């Protein structure tokens, strides 16, 4: 039972990361090596079991985790049942547990006073304890069905759909262009945010459940969608939104100016042993990261560990305040200043700065040119006379994504790509090609992992309905 006074008697306590000077020396997870279960148990008691749990509404959790129910179970030490409840709505709580920005915590009623329940950490504690206790086991399908489903892409959306469909008895094969499954989860997310074994153990479980993987297969190149349509009863495109937004300004083609994801992927492949050395390396360099989001932070943390000499973060928008603005009352998501663990590890943050160009020598970037700007009536305006330049050796562009890789649409007649880069689907997520569905970032644009999981689960439902129509 939840304790109605818990939130008054127990203070919110977040789990501390390891000390900066220690953690920047390795690529391991920034947090502690072992999770503080007792602390999480106490923190779970802060949950008020709200009459209207905003955390599990659309303001909070896209997969609608039954947060009050598992908080209550954790609070009374019933971890195993909590895990069941958690898995009932979320196939991969460890992915979200490590990586989710936790809109649920924003929507938590206690966040009206900025003291939300530490929902994400509790989620992580539940699943990690589950793995430790050997509770996460393969689940055989209840019955075998003969229909075959091809899933293109092994990011969280593809994996969630694959697991759901397999557990319902379908014959599922996952295609991915990477050497290992996981997509951006594996190649985009630095190890210090989530170690790769976290993905591996899930893949093992899925393989044991009977999901088959075809890796190193690029759909559209190695195999066409038409082929898949022929060989499978349904196809799910969960190809992500990997087309990065570029910055077409003078000097963009200088060496040393890279897309963030290229940079991050290289480091990940080095760490996993796929390649031996990083072609893009920040060691000893002055690094400018352009963009202020999570990817930018990932670049900063990576550059720091590689031994960058200096790191700058350039944000276009003015510096947000610390407090929730009047125009975004709870439970809306406010625009406030976020300090990531990468920021804590050291970097100079510049706000309200527009990068206007790069210049360099010998084809290599050596300077970044920028101007300060401000917003007026919603328009971004350069402030005259504030132009400045900065010496840099490496520029990383982390300014978002513009949709799915255009190639797949271009080689697949009938597959419609919308102007915003996403692949078009109907209410059930089916594209104009019969039996071909789309889900995840490919359908809704770059978004959170938790949305990808939600999308994958919904796609599984749609596909099941489609195959049983």
């Amino acid at each position, binding site marked *: 039972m939840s304790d109605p006074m818990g939130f008054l008697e127990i203070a919110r306590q977040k789990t501390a990361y390891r000390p900066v000077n220690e953690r920047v020396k390795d690529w391991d997870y920034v947090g502690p090596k072992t999770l503080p279960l007792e602390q999480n148990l106490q923190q779970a008691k802060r949950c008020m079991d709200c009459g209207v749990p905003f955390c599990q*509404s659309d303001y909070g959790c896209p997969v609608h985790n039954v947060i009050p129910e598992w908080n209550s179970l954790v609070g009374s030490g019933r971890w195993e049942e909590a895990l069941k409840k958690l898995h009932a709505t979320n196939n991969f709580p460890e992915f979200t547990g490590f990586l989710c920005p936790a809109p649920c915590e924003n929507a938590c009623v206690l966040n009206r006073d900025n003291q939300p329940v530490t929902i994400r950490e509790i989620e992580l504690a539940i699943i990690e304890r589950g793995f430790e206790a050997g509770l996460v086991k393969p689940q055989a399908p209840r019955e075998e069905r003969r229909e075959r489903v091809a899933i293109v892409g092994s990011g969280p959306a593809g994996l969630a759909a694959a697991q759901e469909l397999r557990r319902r008895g379908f014959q599922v094969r996952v295609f991915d262009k990477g050497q290992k499954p996981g997509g951006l989860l594996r190649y985009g997310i630095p190890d210090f945010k989530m170690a790769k074994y976290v993905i591996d153990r899930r893949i093992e479980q899925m393989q044991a459940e009977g999901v088959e993987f075809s890796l190193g297969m690029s759909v559209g190149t190695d195999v066409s969608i038409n082929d898949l349509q022929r060989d499978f009863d349904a196809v799910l495109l969960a190809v992500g939104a990997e087309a990065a937004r570029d910055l077409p300004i003078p000097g963009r083609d200088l060496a040393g100016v890279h897309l963030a994801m290229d940079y991050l992927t290289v480091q990940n492949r080095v760490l996993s042993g796929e390649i031996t050395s990083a072609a893009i390396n920040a060691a000893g360099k002055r690094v400018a990261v352009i963009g202020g989001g999570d990817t930018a932070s990932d670049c900063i943390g990576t550059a720091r560990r590689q031994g960058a000499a200096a790191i700058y973060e350039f944000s276009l928008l003015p510096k947000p305040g610390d407090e929730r603005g009047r125009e975004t009352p709870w439970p809306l998501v406010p625009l406030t200043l976020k300090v990531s663990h990468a920021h804590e590890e050291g970097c100079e943050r510049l706000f309200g700065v527009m990068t206007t160009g790069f210049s360099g020598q010998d084809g290599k970037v050596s300077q970044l040119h920028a101007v300060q700007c401000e917003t007026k009536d919603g328009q971004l305006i350069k402030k005259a006379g504030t132009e400045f330049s900065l010496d840099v050796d490496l520029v990383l562009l982390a300014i978002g994504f513009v949709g799915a890789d255009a190639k797949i649409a271009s080689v697949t007649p009938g597959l419609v790509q919308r102007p915003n880069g996403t692949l078009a689907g109907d209410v059930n997520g089916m594209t104009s090609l019969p039996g071909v569905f789309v889900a995840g970032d490919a359908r809704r644009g770059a978004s959170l992992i938790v949305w990808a999981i939600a999308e994958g689960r919904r796609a599984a439902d749609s596909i099941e309905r489609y195959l049983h129509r």
Partner: protein
Amino acid sequence: MTLQNQRQGLYDPRFERDGCGIGAIVNMRGERTHTVVRQALMILQNLRHRGATGYDAETGDGAGIILQKPHDFLLEIAEGSGISLPAASDYAVGMVFLPTEESQQQTIWDTFQSQTERVGLEWLGTRVVPVDPSVLGEAASAVQPAVFQIFIGRGSARDELAFNRSLYLARRLSEKIIGAQIGGANESFHVASLSVSTIVYKGMLLPEQVSSYYVDLTDPRLTSALAAVHSRFSTNTFPAWRLAHPFRWLCHNGEINTIRGNVNWFRAREVSLANELFGEFAEELRPLIRADQSDSACLDDAVELLVLTGRSVDEALRLLVPEAWQKNSFLDQARRAHCEYNATLMEPWDGPAALCFTDGVKLGVALDRSGLRPCRYTVTTDDTVILASEAGVLQVPADRVKVWGKLRPGEMMLIDTKQHRIISDFDLKSEAAAKFDYVGWAERHITQLEPRDPQISAENILELSRQQAAFAYTREELSMVLASIAQSGDELVTSMGDDTPLAILSQRSRLLFDYLKQQFAQVTNPPIDPLREDMVMSLTMYLGTKGNLAAPPSSSALLVKIESPILTPGELDSLERIPALKTCKLSTLFSPATGVAGMRMALCELVDDAVKQVRCGAALVVLSDRGVDAAHAAIPSVLAVSAVHHELVKLGLRTRADIIIETGEARSPHHFACLIGYGAAAVVPYLALASIQGLFANGDLAATLTYDSAVKSFLKGSQKGLLKIMSKMGITTLQSYCGAQIFEALGLSPQLVDDFFPGTSSRLAGLTFDDLARETIGRHRQSFDRSRPSEELPLPGGFIHYRFGGEQHAWSPEAIAKLQQATATGSFAAYADFSKLANAEMAAPTALRHLLTPLKQRTKVDLAAVEPAAEIVKRFTTGAMSLGAISQESHEALAIAMNRIGGKSNTGEGGEDPARFQPESPTLSRNSAIKQVASGRFGVTVHYLTNADEIQIKIAQGAKPGEGGQLPGHKVDQQIAKLRHSTPGVQLISPPPHHDIYSIEDLAQLIFDLKSANPRARVSVKLVSEAGIGAVAVGVAKAGADKILVAGDNGGTGASPLSSIKHAGAPWEVGLAEVHQTLLVNRLRDRVVIETDGQLRTGRDVVIAAALGADEFGFSTAPLIVQGCIMMRKCHLNTCPVGIATQDPVLRKRFSGKPEHVINYFFFVAEEVRTWMADLGITSFADLVGRTDLIGQRRVEGPGKARHLDLSPLLHKPQLTPKFTKRSGGYAPDTYDDSLVQQCRPALDDRTPVVLSRRINNARRATGTLLSGEVARRYGADGLPDNSITLRFEGIAGQSFGAFLAPGITANLIGAANDYVGKGLSGGRIVIIPPKQAQFIDDVPVVIGNTTLYGATSGSIYAAGAAGERFAVRNSGAFAVVEGVGDHGCEYMTGGVVVVLGAVGRNFAAGMSGGVAYVLDTDGLFHLRLNPGLVETSRLSVAGDEADVALLRQMIHRHISHTQSARAQAIMTNWEWHVAKFVKISPKSDGASASKKSVRVKSTKRSVGHEVQSHV
């Protein structure tokens, strides 16, 4: 007869209720005189204020008189009509109402005569009864019948009983034939009386019109030794002549709550009864009790039939209206056995009742088991007995008074004119009990079912989760509801009302139970408190074949007594093993594959099988749905029960066997109530128990529990819940509840109701049998769909809390967020988004109004021309949420906001800090314009009342109609306790009823009292929507209210048990429409303002409500949301995290609401209203009210059930209706009281002491109240110095003597007073002394009626005599000395001191949580009369209890100095000896009711000794 009298729209004359006054006079010596008649008519006139008139002030609701057959008079006048009468015992006289048309009269006479002769009697002739029609009012005149007397000779009848049976036959046969011959005969042909020994004169008359209309009555030749009179208050302005009392045997003040069940049960018995009594005529006579008449008339029919079995009339009434004997430890074995024997024959006709009856020789009076109607009597030195609803109805010189007494609950008194004596209750019942060996009979024929250990019956249910799903269990229900009751033994309490859709609007599959709404008592009868007044409650049932009413105690089959109707499977097993009880078990399963037709067929077969089995001798029919699996679905249990029950009733077989239902469906008190209400005698909830076992196995229950204790808690909690449901309708025994059908169907088709739930009111058409079958089968299929893993079952739920994927909630996260965003940022655009959501434009409907839509008109008006928002917001109020329920911050912010916009906020039931009464600045006032008066009367002082613009009497509230509230101890902090005059940290209980409103005439009295206290305020009455509310509203309008508030069932911000929140009451749309239409039809709509509330949220809601008839609009939840409420539903836990529903100082700091946000909200709503008005072509809001033509029913798309609903009855517009134009206000202060004010001017103006002497009588009511209002207005709560005004009265005072008496006023009465003395006493002093000249033979005369000091906050009362029931009920500060009290003394008391120098009745100190009482324990049996629930007792000793002894001594001294009481003086002369006989009663010192969490409240138990210094 008249258009208005027929059912139309939502107006239905069958909901008519009545209340009234009764009186009687008997010459005990049997001397027949005209004086008795004259005096009886005088009594009638003095009861006028208990009756009522409608829109036509000259037409009374009915009045009449019953007399001995005046043989000498009749002999003479019959001769004048050419009839020669035989000896008195050889003929009967009848009073007959006929149509005025002569041809019809002739037809009737022909029939009547032929039927009379057919049964062997002699038709002697008829006489036109002379009347004076000029005295009649317009309405009465329009329907005036021709009145005849008929004379019928004994003929071949051998003895009196045979004569009476033949008279009955002649009358009933004639009625049936004439009814068929001429249409509407029920209205125009009526035999008011036909008897050898009595005669009735009655009609649609005012009391004073009776004697002038019936010329006979003033004829000095007309004599009688006894007479009973009745003055009626009907909730209908079209009362009928025939419905006036007295009936043939009795007159009745009160209401039979279980009437539907009683009539059905009589139907079940009538085959055997009729055969026994009437042989060959039996078939022709049925039904023996006509259902189309009033409850009192039905009761009269029943009495008549029992008399015809050879019983005396008093015996018949003891059988029908028994005392509460089960828990009465004062009854001897023989009387208990007699009562038990009667209980096996007949279920009680349950409800408030004062019954006056006569057979022409004996006249008796009886009260119901709870004593809810008063009866006072006087015996004079010349052996005349006067008895009536009030004392003082006939002036008797003081020196001729011998006894002043009153009847106690369940008592009966008989005056026998042949034996020339009064037969007391004790003698009467003891004599009756001695007539037969009932003790031996009970031993031989009744066996008790031994409870069995639940553990034994623990069982293995296959596929538990699928079965649970098939019976619509949800995970939420298991983990919240079932787990809660299994752990605590109490039903789950939650708060913030119900914002989920009605079952018929839900997108989800719901149980049939969800379509049945519990009905509850309001105004015309009181709900009961099943906890504090447990002594009248009983769940006992007798299973088996019941005895025949017409036969003597027989050696019939065995009856098994069960103490609770909820049985475990083990207990059922035991029952089935009893050899003498033939049991048959019938399965209610069917194959879902056979579909809708299959379920229908299975039900038919089930009914046929049951009939067959009973015909073959089964005494117990067990219906069972065990064995549900993929191939077997269950017929909805209540459908199966009701179908079998009604068929057995119809065939006259129902008393031969009882029905037990063994079902997986039932698990909540509501389910049990439905099943029993539709005829099951017991329920076996096997799946609920298995589910508890499941919870237990999963570790979902506390580790400290055992399975055994969990089951016991579940059973106990369910029984408590069941008692609560019964008691909210005022029903005390399960026997009466069984089959009583106290439900309203919402969303079932008329066909389905008529076929299987006949007699249940159903106002909106909905699901047919086929729809219901489809819903059942669909749910079953989904539950057994193998592709769905069983771990996913049952479904999540979301019926209480919002759950993603669960039931829809009107307050979705989006709706809450949008509204908060809109009002906090002042954004109308965001409000518009909210409104779209809330008006269900984007989602499925959650409320009936979402199915209605304003019809945009072609002639729109310009928005600028529409009445401004600033005017519209004045029609808005905020709900009655007490300071205590919500925090001071929230309460005051609402008041400030409403005062600023000219709307009204409401104090709620918790008083208000006087510091708030005066505005701080022109724009800042924290005074709540509406001051609520609820059943707890917390903080209701005369000062409080005088600071109201509107005084609201809360009869019921949407979240828990028929129940009282409780403020848990942890919410009672210093401030709250101060305002409520109670102790911090101690829980406060509001009684379910107002103890001064047990009937409609009581409500009229309270309205009169409140208007006397503050004539400037309007008085509103808050009702909750249910079938029949229209009739209640008419009564309320006739009682003088200015405004009627119709609350919906689903609002309510207070804490309440789940089954009340979900299953009691109806939506406001239906109630509002019914009230509006019924008032229009009754031509009373112009007298009252109508307000409605219950989850109103948007301008569209307001527009729909206005079109349905509302003038004003209440909002509660929405303004709280605006203040930051996020529907935590934790109000009852004091842990509201946003500082609204909490008193915790830490949490209160979190409150972030602002008056400006609330103002924003109301202006947004008003602006939305304006845009709709523009579309509707309406410029002035007043023109929108009642315009049902401007709204229509919206078609709903999709698969939902809503499309089955037919809302056209809501849109009915009565024809021939006056447009409401005037607001009458209606109150004129009693000139008597007004003259007191005038004569007290010196004291009022400059505090010059005034002493006045007056005579007084029972028509002078609320004496001193108007004056007290004047004092409070001038001098505030402190009033005047002591003895500023001394009023000396002599005589018998009317009701509410000294109500709200202000400080500085002493009301001295030599004589006696009626009910409600010192109601709301606010500092004044009341002294009552019986006249010295009286020759009392009892040592303690009764000088005060019932319900004294109700809600008194300060002041004192000294009475040298005894008082009635509920003395000092909810007293919170007054001091009282009295010399005897009736039952329920000091009930719910929270403060003050009560000294009783004499006998007390039973159930003393029930619910007493504060104050102290000292009782002189004269017979040493006080402990048997105490309700020890909340109190502890100790004997006083001079040595050990100095403070107590000093206080007691001081109070007795004061008593002597005020009253010169001889009794008190005697005590003082032997003080030391008497002290030891006093028992001190005070709340338990461990603060049993205070919560552990209340650490933030320091208990400050006040020193009693200190306080007495300051009292006057």
